[in-house]
Structure formats: C-alpha cells, structure tokens
C-alpha cells in the first residue's frame, strides 16, 4: 500500500499531469496524420526526457504511445486512410459507417473501445505482469503459426457468397508479403533487381488499396467528385446500452489484444486484425462486417489499444520490447540510468507503479484528447470532395513516402490503388488482401521454422497444447464457414 501511495504522490503533481495530458494529445495528433506515428514521436521525444525527472519523461513517452495507437482510427474512419498501422483494420467498417453518415458514431465507438481496451490491458499488466510475460515467452513458432492461421480464417468469413474471390484476394496479399528478401535464407524473391528488395510494406499497400482506390473510383463517378458532404460530424459517444450489448466482443478483443501485445514482435496491428477476425467469427451476422457496423470498429480498436498495454508487460518485467514503440521507450529508461527488467520492480517499485498509474490516466485522458482532435479532423469532411480528394492524395503520398523515404513505396501505393479500384469494381473484397499482406510474413516464417523444429512433421503443430487448440479451432471455423456458404447455400451479398 505504501508503494501505491508513493506512486500516486509521484504522479499527482501538476508537472507530471501536464506531461501525461500533453503526451496523449501529441500521440493522438501524430497517430491521426498518415506518415507520422507514435514510434516516431517517442523517438523524437527521448532527448527531451533526458532533462526531465524520470517519472515525467517515462509518463510522457507512455502517454504518447497510448494516444498514438488510438489516433490512427480518426483518419481511418473519416478519410479511409489509416493514420497509423494499428488502425488498418478499423478502415473496413469505420469508413463504411462514415459513408452512411454515421461518422460521429464510428468515432465514438473507436474512442470508447480504445479507452476500454487500454484500461483493461493496464489493469492486467498491473496485476499479473510477471506471470503473463513468462507465458508469452513460452510461445514458439508453432504457436505463432497457429495464431496467424486463426487470423487468416477471417478471409473465409469475409467472402460471403464469393468465397473464391475472397480467397483469391487473401492469396494475393500472402503473395505480396513474399516479395523481398526471404527472412530465412536472404534469397531475393520477385525483387526485379533491387527495386523491391525491401519488400512490400503494408502501409503503402493499405493506403493505396483503400484511399487511392476510393479516389480513383470517385473520380470515375462524376457525381461523387463534386458531391458536397453536408453532414455535420462530431464524435457521438455510444450509449451504455450499446456497449453492454457488445460486452463480450469488447472483453474478448481486450483479452486478445493484451495477449498478443505481450508476445514479442507481433504488435498492435496483428492484434487489431485478430480482434476483427474474432469479432466476425463470433458474430451472428458475420455477413454484415465490412458494410459499416460498430462491431467492426469495436473489435480492432479494443484489441489494438489493449496490445499497446500488453506490449509494456515484457518490457517492464523482462526488459524485452513487445513492439517497435516499446523498443524505443527502452531508450527513455536508459537515458535515466534505468534498466527495464525484474530488478526494476525491486529497486524502483514506486516508479513502476507510477508508470502504471500514468497509463491509466493516459487512457482516460485519451477520451478528451480524442474528442478534440476528432472534431478538428471531422471539419474536413464537410469540404467538397473536389478539394478534399487531392488533399487526401497528398497525405497518402507523404504517408507512404515517410515510411522508408523511398518513392518506390509511392509506386507500390499507386499499384495497390489501381488493384483496389479494379477489385472493388469486380466485387473482389479488398480486406482479405490486406489481411494476407499483414500476416503473410509471420505465417510463412513461423511455419517454416516450426517445420524445421518439428523435423518436418506437420502433426507436431497439432500436438502442442496451445498451438494445437488454436489450430483446431481455426480449422473448425473454416469448415463451418464453408458449410454455411457452400452446402447450406445461405444467400449472402458481397457488398464491397
């Protein structure tokens, strides 16, 4: 109790509270602008934290991280451009809701679910960090493969009546993920000389498939180009009743997000896709996903923010970063002479608990910062598309370019934009392609490494308790979807 009181005392000073609030606001802004993200923000802030008290500096970095994960959903919902990779899955239903004139509701669900997901993960981190970190580290390649396959089964659910087209789309994504250097042998695959040696980053691909594809489609549709969006957009928080209706979805996504966040190297983007995947799998109306429903926002948004808290678990307890941003945050500890890991809980318990409190506060303050920034961005939706379209295009170009400072990414974006445009035209769903691209590398590498570990016995994947259960669950899910769509001939429309 003394430690808690000491930690509260450390946090409840005007300076620390100011840094938490400023960090959240900065994180939300950075997350919402394509091309900027919380990893970049934390990296740039580390030198400034050097002159601060350790708690101020670390609280600032943690707050930027929390805010940045949510921020990406604002531009994903309003403009079909995910501001941060973590918001990629939010595009599927977020933008569709905005197109229906429900942008305010979509923003409201995103912010509340982000907040709930974040709070849940901090609570878990607070209660059972060391135990969870040990479980996370026991995950091996077969478990990673099983997780990736479980997420990929979403493709079958997204296909509806056009399951073949959905699988084609997913396979295109998986294929795109193989371009570049092979992770295990460093062999060049489909690189066309050195052009694609760095592979296809999924951010330009997502921006292209959704934003550029949409711009091209609206340019083709003369009416769409000059349309004036007069809908007044402001964030409309969901009612308690609506949230209670989704309680299991939110809880499931929060658990998934936290668990995925703990796994080193997987991260909030994968968590968002798996959160979305599970939301579809457990839904009574999976065919409605992708058409603009709040459940399609609640799933990924809860999961990605929960993953940001989850990623702090291995960082604080073992000194191993769970994501790119937490890897940068290690720098924040080191500049103050602190080495994250088990000894920190023994030597600096108050500081550790103060970081937990800072993250609780950051997730709550995110509600207010999110409302403000979303309101600012929402004003742009009132602008004519003839003005807004070119603005989105410029942010899309800068967002793609900023990833590696390479114009190749802009060409990849344009190619994916054109592909997305034609896929939409011929009613081939785009979402499976993105899921395949995001999870492709994880699936391939974990499968090949797992096979090597198991001496090329495929059955070994099913004999491991965690991995086997997840795989069996995934296979049953696919079988059920195939049964429902092909044998039962349930009529489902593919509205993309």
């Amino acid at each position: 109790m003394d430690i808690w009181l000491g930690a509260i005392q450390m946090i409840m000073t005007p300076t620390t509270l100011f840094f938490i609030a400023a960090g959240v606001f900065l994180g939300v802004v950075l997350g919402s602008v394509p091309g900027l993200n919380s990893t970049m923000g934390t990296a740039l802030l580390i030198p400034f934290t050097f002159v601060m008290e350790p708690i101020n500096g670390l609280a600032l970095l943690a707050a930027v991280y929390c805010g940045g994960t949510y921020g990406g959903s604002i531009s994903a919902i309003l403009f079909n451009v995910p501001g941060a990779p973590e918001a990629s899955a939010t595009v599927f239903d977020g933008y569709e809701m905005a197109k229906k004139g429900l942008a305010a509701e979509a923003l409201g669900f995103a912010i509340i679910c982000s907040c709930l997901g974040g709070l849940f993960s901090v609570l878990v981190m607070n209660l059972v960090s060391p135990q969870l970190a040990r479980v996370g580290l026991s995950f091996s390649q077969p478990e990673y493969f099983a997780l990736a396959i479980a997420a990929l089964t979403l493709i079958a659910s997204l296909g509806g009546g056009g399951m073949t087209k959905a699988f084609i789309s997913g396979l295109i994504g998986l294929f795109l993920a193989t371009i570049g250097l092979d992770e295990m042998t460093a062999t060049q695959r489909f690189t066309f000389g050195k052009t694609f040696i760095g592979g296809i980053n999924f951010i330009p691909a997502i921006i292209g498939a959704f934003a550029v594809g949409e711009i091209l489609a609206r340019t083709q549709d003369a009416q769409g180009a000059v349309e004036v969006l007069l809908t007044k957009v402001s964030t409309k928080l969901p009612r308690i009743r609506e949230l209670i209706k989704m309680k299991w979805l939110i809880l499931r996504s929060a658990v998934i997000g936290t668990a995925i966040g703990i796994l080193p190297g997987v991260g909030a983007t994968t968590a968002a896709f798996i959160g979305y995947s599970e939301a579809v799998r457990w839904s009574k109306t999976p065919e409605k996903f992708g058409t603009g429903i709040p459940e399609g926002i609640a799933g990924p948004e809860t999961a990605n923010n929960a993953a940001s808290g989850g990623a702090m678990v291995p960082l604080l307890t073992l000194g191993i970063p769970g994501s790119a941003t937490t890897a940068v945050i290690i720098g924040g500890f080191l500049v103050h002479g602190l080495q994250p890991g088990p000894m920190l809980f023994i030597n600096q318990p108050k500081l550790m608990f103060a970081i937990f409190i800072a993250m609780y506060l950051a997730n709550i303050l995110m509600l207010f910062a999110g409302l403000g920034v979303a309101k600012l961005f929402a004003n742009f939706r009132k602008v004519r598309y003839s003005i807004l379209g070119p603005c989105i295009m410029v942010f899309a170009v800068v967002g793609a370019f900023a990833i590696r400072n390479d114009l190749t990414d802009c060409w990849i974006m344009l190619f994916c934009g054109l592909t997305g445009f034609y896929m939409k035209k011929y009613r081939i769903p785009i979402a499976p392609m993105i899921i395949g691209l995001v999870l492709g590398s994880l699936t391939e590498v974990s499968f090949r490494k797992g096979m090597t570990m198991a001496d090329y016995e495929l059955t070994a994947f099913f004999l491991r308790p965690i991995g086997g259960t997840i795989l069996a669950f995934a296979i049953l899910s696919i079988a059920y979807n195939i049964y429902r769509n092909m044998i039962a001939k349930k009529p489902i429309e593919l509205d993309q």
Partner: protein
Amino acid sequence: MKNKGEVVFLAAIFLGSLYFLIETFSFQVPGIGGRLGPGFWPQMILIALLILSGTLIAGHFLRRLPEAKGQKKSGPANYKYLLALALMIGYFLSLPVLGFILTTPIFMAVFMVLLGEKLWGWIIGVSLGLTVIVVILFTKAMYVPLPRGKGIFLHFSQLFY
C-alpha cells in the same frame, strides 16, 4: 460475354501467377533454410491462385453470368479516371526531379480542376496552404525528409527544408 473486364482482370491474375510460379524455381538454395526453401511458400500460394482464378474464369465461360451490379458503364466519367491516373503517374515521376515543394501545388491544383472545382481562390489557397503545412509539419517539426529534387530544384528545395 458481359463480364469481359472481370475476366480480363482474373486472366491477369492467372497469367501473373503463372509467371511468378516459374520464377520461384530459380530460388532454390540447397542446404540453406532447411528442406522448405525460399520457393516453397510462394509456390503454394501461386498454385492456389492459379487454381482459384482458373476456376472463376472457367465458370464465366461455362455459366455466362449476367453483368455484375457494381459495374459502371463507360462514358465521359471513365475518361476522367484515366486522366487522374495519368496525373498521379506524372506527379510521382516529377517528384524526384522537381521536388515536393514545386510539384505538389501544381498537382493539387490540376487535380482539383479535374474533379470539377471551379473556385480559383480555393484551388490556389488550398494547394499552396497544404503544401506549406506538410513541409512545416514533416520537415521542421518531425524531421521527416520529403523529396527535394535534382540540380537547380534541389537548391530551391534546400531554401525551405
């Protein structure tokens, strides 16, 4: 056949898959990375793509499906989409030569006109304003470099970032 465009798109996927599948046979690196070499995974994917896209193409020929609901008829609007695509390609080609600060306002202004914007005050104001905001936000505040161009254009860009 009414769904010509879709068949052409699927045929492009089929032929692309076939081309890349042939390419995978040059990947084999014996003794490195275990028995499942670098070609194994792409081969699985491309074979599946060939089968699925081939099935759909065959289905089109066999069933002669009615025209899909989502398809747009050709007309003046299609022409605009091709112009927009050409404009984007031109923008990407000129970025490494002329730099971001010179090409972006021109690209934006032309794109706005193409999309039917008629108010020149908005066209000029937004084109210049957004370029300035992006340059300040990315290069000054976040230290993210933007394309600077070459030769004289490089010197011009260096005046700003």
